[in-house]
């Protein structure tokens, strides 16, 4: 197999909780010994419930959150060893699209400036070149290239998420962490944004870490899927394998909870006993199929 674009090994992120007067603060492990790889051009889905650590994992990858320990390799870069200024330079290669298109865009900035800002920070191009690039980016994400002077509130949720994607693309990154990019959008608009992400991936050869809780969507657009539970990966496999032959009890429970789209067709729910959760390391149970069982 070729060298992966991203390799994460034994990633740990602890958050300290505030103790009381007589209690010592005990750190909470939001991400607990997580290892995975992402190949160039592929989409890795990261699923799990709220609080499972999937968003923190995505942010650690970009060092938007400082990991407690572990290795993060991006191509030949040791991401954790980068100094602040090196990190800033390296960030042009990995970007993020946030969940909430309403709060992730500065309401006081014109959308043209929002998309141009990364180019200014990285001192790319002359003013005219940057303007031209912004127009091109707007076109790329299916927005009117003349929309630059408008403010975020003049756009719908789906359009705002397109602006977020345009900004993420400004520096021509190779990796984009998509953190629940469509879950705040209406059903009929979700598909538009997902299709845009798929088209862009094909045209620009992008690699995605796609964080989501919509399992149907994940099955459709991801090459591989990693299932997270209480800060740990419990299963990593090709999307088809996860959905047709899940191995970990939590994955099985998660899949059985998806409502069936066929009226009258009720799937048997498989309960998962949280108290019985036994954190084990991932092991290969079949080719390309890891499970913590």
């Amino acid at each position: 197999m070729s060298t992966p674009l991203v390799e994460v090994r034994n990633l740990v992120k602890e958050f300290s909780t505030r103790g009381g007067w007589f209690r010592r603060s005990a750190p909470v492990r939001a991400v607990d010994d997580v290892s995975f790889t992402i190949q160039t051009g592929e989409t890795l889905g990261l699923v799990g419930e709220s609080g499972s650590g999937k968003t923190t994992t995505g942010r650690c990858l970009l060092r938007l959150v400082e990991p407690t320990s572990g290795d993060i390799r991006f191509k030949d870069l040791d991401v954790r060893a980068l100094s602040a200024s090196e990190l800033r330079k390296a960030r042009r290669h990995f970007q993020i699209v946030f969940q909430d298109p309403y709060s992730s865009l500065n309401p006081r900035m014109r959308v043209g400036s929002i998309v141009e800002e990364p180019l200014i920070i990285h001192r790319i191009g002359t003013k005219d070149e940057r303007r031209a690039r912004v127009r091109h980016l707007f076109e790329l994400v299916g927005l009117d290239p003349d929309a630059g002077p408008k403010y975020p509130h003049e756009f719908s949720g789906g359009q705002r998420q397109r602006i977020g994607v345009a900004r993420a693309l400004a520096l021509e990154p190779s990796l984009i962490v998509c953190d629940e990019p469509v879950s705040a959008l209406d059903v009929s608009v979700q598909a538009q944004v997902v299709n845009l992400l798929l088209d862009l991936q094909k045209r620009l050869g992008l690699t995605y870490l796609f964080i989501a809780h919509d399992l149907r969507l994940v099955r459709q657009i991801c090459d591989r899927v990693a299932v997270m539970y209480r800060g740990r990966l419990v299963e990593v496999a090709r999307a088809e394998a996860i959905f047709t032959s899940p191995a970990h009890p939590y994955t099985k429970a998660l899949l059985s909870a998806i409502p069936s789209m066929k009226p009258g067709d009720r799937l048997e729910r498989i309960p998962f006993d949280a108290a019985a959760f036994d954190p084990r390391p991932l092991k290969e149970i079949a080719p390309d199929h890891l499970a913590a069982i």
Partner: protein
Amino acid sequence: MTTTSDAPLLAVDHLRTVFRLADGRDAAAVDDVSFHIRKGETLGLVGESGSGKSVTALSIIRLVQPPGRITGGRLLFDGRDLMTLGEEDMRRVRGRRIGFVFQEPMVALNPVYTLGSQITETLMVHDLARGAAGMKRAVELLEAVRIPDPARRAREYPHQLSGGLRQRAMLALALAAEPSLLIADEPTTALDVTVQAEVLDLLRDLRKMFGLSLLLITHDLGVVAEMADRVAVMYCGRIVEQGPVAEVLGGSTSLTTGPAHPYTRGLLASVPDGRSGTRLVAIPGTVPALGRVGAGCAFAPRCGDRFDPCTTAVPDLTPLGPGRDVRCYLHSPAPTNPGGGR
């Protein structure tokens, strides 16, 4: 309406609720909405944000706040027109006969009272039980919604519960007065999928246990397919299609089974079908804002089947079969004098 013994518990008839816009115009958030729910039946009310589904629910319990107001229609509940009730009578219907749960339980639960005292207060207000009997009943209700260790939880405050448990506590509160109709507005949207599954299973059991009728408001067609007997699809304040779930959300797109309205078809098609590597089927455009809907069918600008009459006048709700209606010129004769009909 047929005159069978199972007369509807709730019949909403040509309901219209408007909101005063900043420019002084009134815009209808709910327009000419009619549906009914029989005893023990579950109706799924489906729509995207801005479709008017939540305003419909608030209108039924007459809790629409200014700048919104109900300007027309009838709300027949158990033989009485709720529109004619005074505020005092209406308050007795709310909570006692019609219970409601919302997406965000923290809005409905009072943060400074224990779960037990909130439930006992409801029981007291409706003259159902007080004192020790009230507390006993509160614990029973918490047990009925499958909150573990209910006696201890009754002494706890809402912030001490997880999201799923809060949603259950709100259900216990809504069911305290044993209402005959429960209105649930996106009851599982904020929950994780495994917790959602538990709450849906619970709702299904409670429906049986209490003989409840359920108005289930959601944007999730999967939840409707699983839970509802019938479904009404709303778009821009109007019901565009309604009928039995098996027919409306059924597989084929022939006239009798499968979605008849292009919007319903689009919604169903945009749900990922799990065939990996394929693009999703998207509905182009976006939902227009309140007051920005043009003449004719509100969906026309986004509709692939649009033809001349669609942009001239709003199509009428046309029957397709028993209990099955659609508001679309594909299924009803176009007006002979466009624009002059209404």
